[in-house]
């Protein structure tokens, strides 16, 4: 197992209470495998990813849990060792390419800085490597683009530059936090193809964070569904797309746009909206929006339990059905 996250809890301690952004999440990623964390905005996907690299900053704090990466618990490593893993073994791509690149340094300067940090190459090799990295990311004439500042690049190019930064040292695991959300649809496809290619080329594992099941279907091998800081379901992509049991996952799937449903006037939606994390409903946090809810749902928080086909699910009703 490359990455094993167990019982991770991350909370934000705000003036008006403890916000449990990630509440007892466990998942694992094998080598070369892609796991997608799926959920609506504000469900804690990004915080979960940040917690892996121990990058949660105050008032947020990782309360408990383990993040085992290649045998070491990242949450217990000292800062120096952690910095050696960040960017070297685990790369990260952010949602908003416009703000994840430093506006006052050229793309090349940022690439070279990262390469200097993580490799023993000499100056000459580093410059050449930076250009090659941009070339690998489908930049035409990369030797010109290394000297460009982020604002001179288009949105798609920025994201490709950001991916180049994450790929500097060919990490074992790439965390991609909504890598296509901020981009145009055509550019989205381009970035998806690039990620897919890189994943196979470098035999890299990936943690994909997305709310777009279309993107997830393209890249993921396994999917974990999050809702209001909790994990609802964890199963293979195939299972999720075809026989997902959890009512929330089913709702997400129904609200996807399909070619055969496009002629219908209405797209099915999940009624209501994500609850306030500071004021979660009693019992299952999804029950106010769930069409199948029973009395037990309003009283007890469902435990996540293992079902057949190595599937995890947290729903009272699903337990009953199996």
């Amino acid at each position, binding site marked *: 197992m490359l990455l094993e996250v167990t019982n991770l809890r991350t909370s934000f301690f705000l003036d008006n209470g403890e916000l449990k952004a990630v509440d007892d999440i466990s998942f694992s990623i094998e080598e070369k495998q892609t796991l997608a964390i799926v959920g609506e905005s504000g469900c804690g996907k990004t915080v979960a990813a*940040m917690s892996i*690299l121990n*990058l949660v900053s105050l008032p947020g704090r990782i309360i408990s849990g383990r993040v085992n990466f290649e045998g070491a618990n990242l949450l217990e490593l000292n*800062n120096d060792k952690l*910095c*050696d*893993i*960040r*960017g*070297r073994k685990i*790369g*990260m791509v*952010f949602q*908003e390419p416009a*703000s*994840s*690149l*430093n*506006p*006052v*340094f*050229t793309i090349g300067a940022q690439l070279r*800085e*990262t390469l200097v*940090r*993580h490799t023993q190459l000499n100056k000459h090799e580093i410059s050449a490597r930076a250009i090659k990295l941009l070339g690998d990311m489908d930049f035409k004439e990369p030797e010109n683009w290394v000297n460009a*500042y982020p*604002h001179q690049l288009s949105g798609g190019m920025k994201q490709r530059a*950001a991916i180049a*930064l*994450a790929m*500097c040292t060919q990490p074992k695991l790439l965390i991609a936090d909504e890598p296509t959300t901020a981009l145009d649809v055509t550019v989205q496809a381009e970035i998806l193809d690039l990620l897919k290619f890189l994943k196979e080329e470098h035999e890299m594992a990936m943690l994909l964070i997305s709310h777009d099941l279309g993107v997830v279907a393209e890249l993921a091998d396994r999917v974990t569904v999050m809702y209001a800081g909790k994990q609802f379901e964890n199963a293979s992509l195939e299972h999720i797309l075809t026989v997902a049991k959890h009512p929330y996952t089913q709702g997400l799937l129904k609200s996807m746009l399909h070619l055969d449903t496009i002629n219908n006037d209405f797209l099915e939606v999940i009624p209501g909206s994500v609850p306030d994390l500071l004021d979660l409903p009693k019992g299952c946090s999804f029950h106010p929006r769930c069409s199948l809810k029973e009395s037990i749902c309003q009283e007890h928080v469902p435990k996540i339990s293992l079902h057949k086909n190595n599937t995890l699910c947290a729903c009272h009703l699903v337990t009953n059905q199996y």
Partner: protein
Amino acid sequence: MLLGIASLVFFIIHIAPGDPLDMLINQYQRNVPSPETIEAFRIKYGLDQPIHIQYFKWLQNCLAGDLGESFRYHRPVTTLITERIPFTIQLTFLALLFDALFGILLGIISAVKQYTLTDKIISVGSLIIYSIPGFWLALMLILIFSVNLGWLPLSQTRSLDYDLLSGVDQFKDRLMHLILPVFVLGIASAASTARYLRSRLLEVLNEEFILAARARGIKEKAVIFSHALKNALIPIITIYGMSLPFLLGGSVLIESIFSWPGMGSLAIEAVQNRDYPLILATTMMGAILVVLGNLLADIMYAIVDPRVSYDT
């Protein structure tokens, strides 16, 4: 615009009460000059002419580069200014240096150690210093260090026996005279620089590219000193561009208190003596410097911030 400022100043000082001749008369309290002398003076400096004629004459001379002759010193205004400017530059340059050094240093410390005791001491301390009026601080420091302790000289740029001192001692003497005025001028702006840099730095440290840099394993030192500081310093560098009028125009209050023979005290003497040509020249210079300072700030902005360019 400069013409507008010049004209405005010209008419305001002529409308304002007081007459340069009154001042001249006050100068010779014991033997009051005869009416003929006064009249001769009036004619010599063209004060007998109607105001609009005076105005156009002054404007004409101005454009020809002649700023007139000081009523008080009976010497060309340009000579007076070139004599005084080096003293002002000396004082304010050192003050700016002090400001940049301490302001930036304290700003960084305070931002990096946010919410710690160090941060609180720096923040509250700089707020207090920033709020203290400069002239009061100057007087208090003079009282403590010059009058009571006798460590530092009271005022002026050098001691009375300056000419008798050896080369090294002469330098030391000048340095001693600089300490208090530089400190008073520098510390208030250092305090504001520190506060401003702290808030800018904290803002920048919350940006996603800082998180991204950390996620790439960049060491915290490099994150702060290279990634964050370069972004946070951009607006501060431009503020230094705008301090050009201060650098050359000097501080009226501080220079007066320390009897520093710079541009600031020249300006105040000019006003006190109703020395029209000198008032006009010093205010004009101030105006030009403000405009140039803004221009400089814009140019510096374009140099330090790659996102700004004027080559369109």
